[in-house]
């Protein structure tokens, strides 16, 4: 066990993957000499060479399409998209090729491509550097979509993602890159890539989230204890497929569900999860599930991003609502 940041845990995971499998190749912009703008690939080109850690031209579609060709040749490409908002040029290749070559060829050709994307807001960035585009990918058949919230998960999950024979879109919560935690680099007893985990146990409300908001949700659960409320926090980890089994177990216990994510509400993961849980748990739900999300606006300017981003208070506001409590700020009450 070692204490490291989430970014360092990813770096260590990538290093293991490069060590373990000679077909693993890293591609991206500024990932070589610079070590990535967030230093996630720091030192990897030095240690593994330019053939395995490749600085590419500034062309996201090109990176993704070249990764498809490498996968055709038997390689296991790990692509870095520098920022969430830069992924869109690559979306064509991701949706029309990466996600469906396996289906198209009836399993003859696999696409074991990992697409790393730093995502989410909260770092005071300029436009296109704070997006949460996960729903686009979760909507696409053939892609696995995952995200990590802790250094341990970051390390384990990136290794699992690279080892996975399906394409995996791996969202990294960029504002948590510097969060520190204990990391066990042995793979033993690691939960599977697509399994959710209960972060805090509770009995009154299930608070489901993922990525950057897991820490916020945990803090909310701690704060709610003072109020006599027991919140169970579930870190989904996998956004496609969503581990509804684990979530269902939690909601069957609590009877209430709040889902929170930074991404916009409409057509988002929250809607999908609420629908899935309502379908499974209608008989035990004590209140309509609630969502706490970014608003249906483009990501705003840095000085007002705090209003866009779900925070501890907005989460607890929603918890109050599903508990049928009068809300402290608006006086809103469930009817």
């Amino acid at each position, binding site marked *: 066990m070692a204490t490291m940041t989430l970014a360092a845990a990813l770096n260590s995971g990538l290093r293991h993957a490069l060590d373990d499998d000679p077909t693993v190749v890293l591609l991206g912009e500024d990932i070589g000499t610079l070590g990535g703008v967030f230093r996630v690939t720091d030192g990897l080109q030095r240690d593994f060479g330019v053939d395995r850690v490749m600085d590419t031209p500034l062309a996201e579609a090109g990176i993704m*399409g*070249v990764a498809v060709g490498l996968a055709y*040749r038997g390689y296991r490409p790990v692509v870095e998209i520098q920022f969430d908002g830069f992924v869109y040029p690559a979306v064509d*290749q991701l949706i029309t*090729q990466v996600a469906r070559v396996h289906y198209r*060829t009836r399993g003859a050709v696999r696409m074991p491509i990992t697409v790393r994307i730093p995502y989410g807001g909260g770092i005071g960035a300029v436009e296109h550097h704070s997006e949460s585009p996960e729903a686009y990918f979760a909507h696409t*058949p053939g892609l696995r979509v995952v995200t990590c919230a802790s250094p341990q998960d970051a390390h384990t999950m990136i290794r699992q993602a690279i080892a996975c024979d*399906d394409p995996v879109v791996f969202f990294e919560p960029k504002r948590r890159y510097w969060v520190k935690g204990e990391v066990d680099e042995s793979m033993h007893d690691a939960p599977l890539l*697509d399994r959710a985990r209960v972060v805090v146990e509770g009995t009154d409300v299930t608070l489901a989230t993922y990525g950057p908001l897991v820490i916020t949700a945990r803090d909310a659960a701690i704060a709610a204890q003072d109020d006599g409320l027991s919140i169970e926090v579930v870190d989904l980890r996998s956004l496609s*497929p969503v581990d509804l089994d684990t979530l269902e177990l939690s909601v069957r216990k609590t009877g209430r569900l709040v889902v929170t994510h930074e991404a916009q509400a409409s057509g988002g993961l929250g809607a999908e999860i609420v629908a899935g849980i309502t379908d499974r748990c209608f008989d035990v739900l004590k209140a309509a599930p609630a969502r706490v999300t970014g608003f249906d606006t483009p990501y705003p300017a840095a000085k007002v991003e705090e209003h866009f981003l779900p925070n501890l208070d907005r989460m607890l506001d929603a918890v109050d609502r599903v508990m049928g409590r009068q809300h402290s700020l608006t006086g809103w009450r469930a009817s």
Partner: protein
Amino acid sequence: MLRADVSPGRALPTHQQAEALQLVTPDGVRRDDPVHDPWIADVDDELLLHLYEDMVVVRRFDTEAVALQRQGQLGLWPPLLGQEAAQIGSARALRSDDFVFSSYRENGVAYCRGAQPTDLMRVWRGTALSGWDPRTIGMATPQVMIGSQTLHATGYALGCVKDGVDSVAVAYFGDGATSKGDVHEAMVFAATFAAPVIFFCQNNQWAISEPVGLQAQRPIADRAAGYGIPGIRVDGNDVLAVLAATRESLDRARRGDGPTFIEAVTYRMGPHTTSDDPTRYVDPSDKEQWAAKDPIARVERLLRATGALTDERAAAITAKADAFATQMREGCYGLPTPEPLSVFDDVFVEPTPELERQRSQYAAYLAMFDEEA
């Protein structure tokens, strides 16, 4: 007053008549070319007869496929009529360990790679999304998206370098695709990393109804220089010129000297697909001019002049072409419709719980009808 009826790009630019490598004239006369002749020095009468036979077979089954579509047996077919030399001349230059990433029109290339008659039918009859297992014939599923495959070829070529082998990837695409960003990015990547890839552009003058003038204001091959890639313009209706240019490019790639861009200037004599109506946009006199440059007729003239093509041999070639077309038709009729639940197969290497749930629910739904019956 400014005119309101200006329509840029509709006319065929004069540059499209620019010089292209030609080793056999439309009249069937072999032209000497000291630079390129060495690349086809091995092509004697017998080898030329094989190339001729390939083109005849390909035209024959292409015609058969159009008929199958007209008869309602195929949903769609993209004819390659007129492009036989471009496809045969290039594909026959390849080794089995090379790898092709093509568009949907390269059925002649697929034939050369070893696709079976029935394999050519699956996609167009709608029984599969890929006609074959790409690894068995060294050719990816023909790409429906325009130009996407140029990047795949580039990535594959990079893999060949990493593996230390001298295999080459070949990307086939059309003049329309050269406007796509993916093709541009592919050439940037290929040039940067000296990838052993050939960009083989069949400039057939049309992207559905759009003439090449809407895509390029200079000969397309000229673009290559801007990427630092050697570019060559060949008469795409001259099978020997195409063969020579492809061999030269392959050799460059195998030596580690990187990519080549080949523009094979040809003409799409048929519609874009069987759903298209070219009478709405093609000038018949244009088509007549290109008919006089037919890729098969010129080789036939050459082979007749040398005496290599006898009536007996011609009959044997026709018989082989007919046999292939017959196998294709019968294979088409015999293609089974996939099982309903197969739509759930192969989304992932292992199905997700949600997919399993949807499959079992749909299976139960279908079973209700069995019980009623």
